């Protein structure tokens, strides 16, 4: 388990279609916050924005869809090269509604 205080290599990910370059080892939540986006989800009843809550996987506010997997806790999940991340508006399953 190496540690270093030198800058980390970045990974390239896509967030809602836009390309982001994010330091490796950063959580997805940290990537949003670092770019000045404290909120990245809209709730289903009141369409209100949510972002980082508890930071440790308990509150389920920070959910994103990652590579098609819905409801991923962004605070627990590090970015990986090539990740396709989409934000959830109302529900990650909105595209399956009938």
């Amino acid at each position, binding site marked *: 388990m190496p540690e270093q205080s030198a800058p980390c290599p970045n990974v390239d990910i896509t967030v809602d279609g836009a390309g982001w370059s994010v330091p490796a080892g950063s959580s997805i939540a940290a990537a949003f*916050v670092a770019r000045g986006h404290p909120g990245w989800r809209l709730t289903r009843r009141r369409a209100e924005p949510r972002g980082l809550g508890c930071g*440790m996987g*308990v509150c389920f506010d920070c959910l994103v869809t990652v590579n098609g997997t819905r409801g991923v806790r962004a605070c627990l999940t590090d970015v990986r090269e090539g990740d396709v991340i989409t934000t959830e508006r109302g529900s990650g399953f909105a595209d399956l509604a009938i």
Partner: protein
Amino acid sequence: MPTWPSEPRGTPGRGPRHSDVAVIGAGPAGMSAAVAAAQAGCSVTVFDLGERPGGQYWRWGPASDGRFHHGWPAFRALRDSFGGHQAAGRIVHLAGHAVFHVDPPPAGEVPGIGSRFTVHAVAGERERGYAAVEVSAVVVATGAYERQLPVPGWTLPGVMAAGAAQALLKGSAVVAGHRVVVAGTGPFLMPVAAGLAQAGARVAAVVEANQPLSYLRQPLDLARSWRKLPEAAGYLARLARHRVPVLCRHAVVAAHGDGRLRSVTVARLDPAWALVPGSQRTLDADVLAVGYGFIPQVELLGEAGAQLRRGQDGRTFAAEAGADQQTSVPGLFAAGETTGIGGADLSCLEGQVAGRAAARHCGHQVRPAGPAIIRRRAALRRFGALLDAVHPVPPGWTQWLTGDTVVCRCEEVTLARLLAAVDLGADDARSVKLLARPGMGWCQGRICGAAVAAIVAGQRRSGRSDGGDPDFPESAVSRPLAQPVPLEVLAEAAHERAAGGMAGSP
């Protein structure tokens, strides 16, 4: 008979992995337990939610060099031991695994060597597979999470747990914002504020709701905990150096913004935590890092049958653990914050004791914890209790809310909806939950449960005659699924041996 099959068609022959010991949680307690059990000769499977071991206290990332951490050398040593046992094949570390259920040995089996627990987990927050291990002993070291109090505007992005701001810093080297207010109650606020200040954030204020100088009223316990004083003094000095004002007997009673946090209202509190009228003032902030103490995560223990005891405030539960950290279920151990909030040193100590005792349970020759360890653990527990006592959470905060304040974040249940349920005849927290749905969302009431109980208790019109605990019975922390589980994973878990004598049912 109808042709609809009632047994799921799955890949046959996929059995659980076997191991001597399962450790759930890889924070200070879990890592210490895993290392101790491995050192004693056990095979250990460690399940942890995070990508890296260390838990919350030692949350780290590739850029970490210890400057934002406490006890970094001790962590490095522990991490090296852990890694050594991994390399030797004694520890299997399952990162990103969410344990959702622990089956105790089936009823009727004599507890001891040979009777097996089954630990069920979702494998990977992204991958969402299934993993299960059958073991002789389980150490549950699932830590604790921060208590939050709902206030108007607390759902605005930018409002986060104090630990969340710290996790950003320690884990991802990200400063949460430019102008931070750190608020709540408890000794945790200081290191959070000091770390943020050190990292270059402007910390506008530390807002502590209690008056921690009441430490001084308990000089004897304080004298025994003299080792802790330099730590506290160090934080205060660092805050002073960065010109961070520390307000005591104050709280953030509202957050404001337009889709994100812009400012907070700070007010003075009386001892019952009612607002002192006219004391409100506004502070600009784009981050509110807030926490009101910690709540142990004990659902896996409770569901497996372990006896729990109620915490001081009546709305938390911790696991009862004996001198060797064993719970009331033979072979099931609890270590760290799950036995009561006490900090990282205590967690490491309890983890060591639990790991050794788990090894003993598996038949290895290991001496029980000696008197020096027992004494040190007792001293650390006393200090934890002292800190708890000077950071209570009286119910006056319920008066800070307005009807539109969201109380249950997951289901977006406002105070007005809760009061409407009370009006309909729901006079305890469970009835309110059935009618208005707080606690029915993803987090299953972890964030809002105690708050809802306090609100409902405050609304109760008449006394109860049945003597029961209407606000927060033990069932309030009963969660048969400790983590959300994909249905296809649950389907796979049906193949594993289950508890309750179900083996062999038609």
